[in-house]
């Protein structure tokens, strides 16, 4: 479904993403792990069009999408969340999530230059019954999405996003991504800043999404969660892919232990084997 070939991005002297190859099949959940600064988020930016690669190619559903704009990729069904959270602070929770459904709005669809936007303006001002009905339907849909987070967001549906806690902002982002009805979902550390209970909830939600058949690329540090959810795990360090495989395989790969879990652990392992 998604395939990256030799994807490379350099910043000055630093190669943030170094000739990465990656294939993701429909319905698969692949996790990318690696220490902070390994280039995981840059890789997400390259896939979602927020940054352009210096070399390499990205294919989505058999089509080359290298260097396409993020707006185009959103319309193609690629949704993402951001590591530090990019909610629209002054918008209510409802409006934040409705933005996720933006590419599905009928008023947005006509792509003719000049006339398309003018029609959109006209529809927004006149608001015929069909537009009203669509808006109503989407609002109901948003509530259904918010309901997946239990009582975390529903009671706050009209509050501005800037008033939310970190964990709730993170949830709003995921809700927004789901409102796009994505074909591919990229989650950048969905549990950052969450306590164990919240993390467990998030893990359950991601598992649910996977069970529903959604294709997911996940960046995550919480290894337990990664091991439980992932079909495959990719380990990045210094921009390179240093290992790939099933969870347990990767976990016992000495290179991975060295780079990601820290050589302290490998030291302990040696001591243990010596003892």
């Amino acid at each position, binding site marked *: 479904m998604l395939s990256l070939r030799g994807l490379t991005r350099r*910043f*000055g002297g630093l190669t943030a993403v170094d000739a990465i190859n990656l294939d993701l099949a429909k319905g698969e959940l692949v996790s990318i792990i690696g220490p902070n600064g390994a280039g995981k988020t840059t890789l997400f*930016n390259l896939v*979602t069009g*927020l*940054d352009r690669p210096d070399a390499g190619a990205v294919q989505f559903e058999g089509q080359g999408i290298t260097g396409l*704009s*993020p*707006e185009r990729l*959103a*319309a193609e069904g690629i*949704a*993402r969340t*951001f*590591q*530090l*959270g*990019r*909610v*629209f*602070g*002054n*918008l209510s929770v409802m*409006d*934040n999530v*409705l*933005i*996720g459904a*933006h*590419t599905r*709005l009928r*008023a*947005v669809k006509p792509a003719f230059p000049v006339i398309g*936007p*003018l029609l*959109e*303006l006209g529809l*927004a*001002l006149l*608001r015929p019954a069909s537009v009203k009905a669509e*808006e109503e339907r989407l609002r109901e849909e948003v509530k259904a999405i918010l309901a997946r987070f239990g009582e975390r967001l529903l009671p706050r549906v009209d509050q*501005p*996003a*800037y008033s939310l806690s970190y964990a709730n*902002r993170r949830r709003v982002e995921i809700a*927004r991504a789901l409102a*796009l009805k994505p074909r591919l979902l990229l989650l950048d550390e969905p549990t950052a800043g969450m306590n164990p209970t919240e993390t467990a909830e998030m893990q359950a939600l991601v598992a649910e999404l996977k069970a529903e058949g959604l294709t997911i690329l996940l960046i995550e540090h919480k290894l337990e969660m990664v091991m439980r959810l992932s079909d495959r795990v990719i380990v990045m360090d210094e921009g390179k892919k240093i290992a790939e495989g099933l969870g347990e395989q990767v976990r016992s790969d000495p290179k991975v232990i060295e780079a990601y879990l820290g050589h302290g652990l490998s030291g302990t392992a040696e001591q243990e084997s010596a003892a």
Partner: protein
Amino acid sequence: MSSWLDYTINGLIVGNVYALVAVGLALIFGVSRLINFAQGSIYLVGAYIGWVAVVQLHTPLPLTIIVVAAAAALVGLIIERFGLRPLQNSVRIAPLLATIGISFVLDQLVMLTFSPNPRALPSQLPDVRFQVGGGTIGPLDLLIAGVGITSALLLFVFLRYSKLGWAVRAASQDRDAAMQMGVDVNRVNQAVFGIAAALGGVSGMLVGMYYNQIDTAMSLQATLKGVVAEVVGGAGNVPGAVVGSLLLGLVESYGVAVFGTSYRNLFAFLLLVVVLVLRPNGLFASARQAPPEPLTGTFIAPSRPVRIPRWALAVAAAIFAILPLFPVSFYVLQTLINAWLLGMLALSLTLVAGTIGQVSLGHAALLAIGAYTSALLSLTFAVPVGLAIIGGGLMSAALGTTLISPSFRLRGHYVSIATLAIGEIVSLVILNWESVTRGPIGISGIPPLSLFGYDLISPTSIYWFSLSVMVVLALLQGRLLTSHLGRSFRAIRDDDIAARAYGLSLNRYKSLAFIFGGFAAGISGGIAAHLYSYINHETFNTQQSILALTVVILGGLGNVVGAILGSVALVGLPEMFRIAAEYRILIYGIVLLLLVRFRPQGLLGTI
């Protein structure tokens, strides 16, 4: 051939003058990421202090330069300490607005002290010309070149070898890291504002001597030229600012050589727009990098808007509607008509600056386009006035949006620079395109307002007409805000990266905002043209743009009711207290400063 050398020398000399302004802007931008719109005002102050020194105190030239530099530096320090330091922890839009307010206050203070009439500033140098190759050069040229080169050397030595200079460089590369080395950023800011102001002040004095004339219009021109030079060189890049200035001087000089003097500024602003579009980080920048992730929209303060019930708005509208039925004076009606016209402009600006976050400083250009279109349609093509005004609105929407579209890919302060420049370009085109706009003569004899064949001449009918047009525009805008477009505009304002990741095309939605806003502003300009019966290229000037911005901030960014309330307050209150016209702009500047400091979300709050 010889004249080309002259033009080159002239270009380099003028470039030197720009460099003195631009280097200061670059230093300030480096340390504070702020484009100091008050830089031109310091330049103006420098010129007038020079005048006082030369004409009244008869100081010798070296002393004049020292006096001007010291006095201007003092002004810079005061601006930094009292105007900007209190805003250190506020949203990024705040210091930008503050420098605009400061610039208005300073310009008006100079105007009130010295009167708006131009004054002569003699150069104190012998009037001789030396032959150089095929061209000539005078002592003043040499002085300007000497001051430019000396300042550059002094600045180089300061930055490279003094401790404070190191602190300035470190702070401009990484402010937080510099603080962690023990650098006191407040002292760095003081140093930078002091230096920038000294250079700017001396520059103003030299220009005054160069043309042997100073007047208060110098201020805005200097800010614009300095900003152009700085942006061309790459914002915050000090050597880049010098190169950008020389380049700007040459481009202007050659442009004048080919097309004539009235085209000088046009070339400067076109250069700016071209650089902003092609290389927004300046000619020498290479890095392209996504900006760091914000936690939430940080350019505009979060706030909870004041909700006013519909019935209260309906009652207020009804009261204003029946007002003329009571015995109110002509004067009150006239004032309120002005408020309604300003209200339409404010509606337009609150949409683009508040709702979608493009802080436009050239909004008066949209008025001008609407006014000229409506005037010419009714005069030349005998189109009925009502239709002509709508034509003005449509033209302003279409042409205004097209002209402003190069700024759509920019953010933050750059948008303000670009719109300011585009506003100036419109005014310059009107001035120079004589076959259509009648150039500097302006258009007179514009037919009065009329509707369906009935002339609207009585103040009451004009009042009702303008009030109802404004109310209709306000209702439409309110409807727009509650649609998916309102949501999309606000999302783009809060975080354009996340917005793009969810399929919102910045070009498309910024265009739509400017189309809607341009229409409202064009209608306002059109009505104004028929009310005034005479317009020229200066009728709709930057002061009106800034007044509209003050109204919008006062009411609350993006707030429709706030824009109208702000218009009534800023037009009405000075009239009520019978404040003389020359003090009004001073008051607008002060209001803007106080708002930014104490109530950045405005009276009714950001929506």
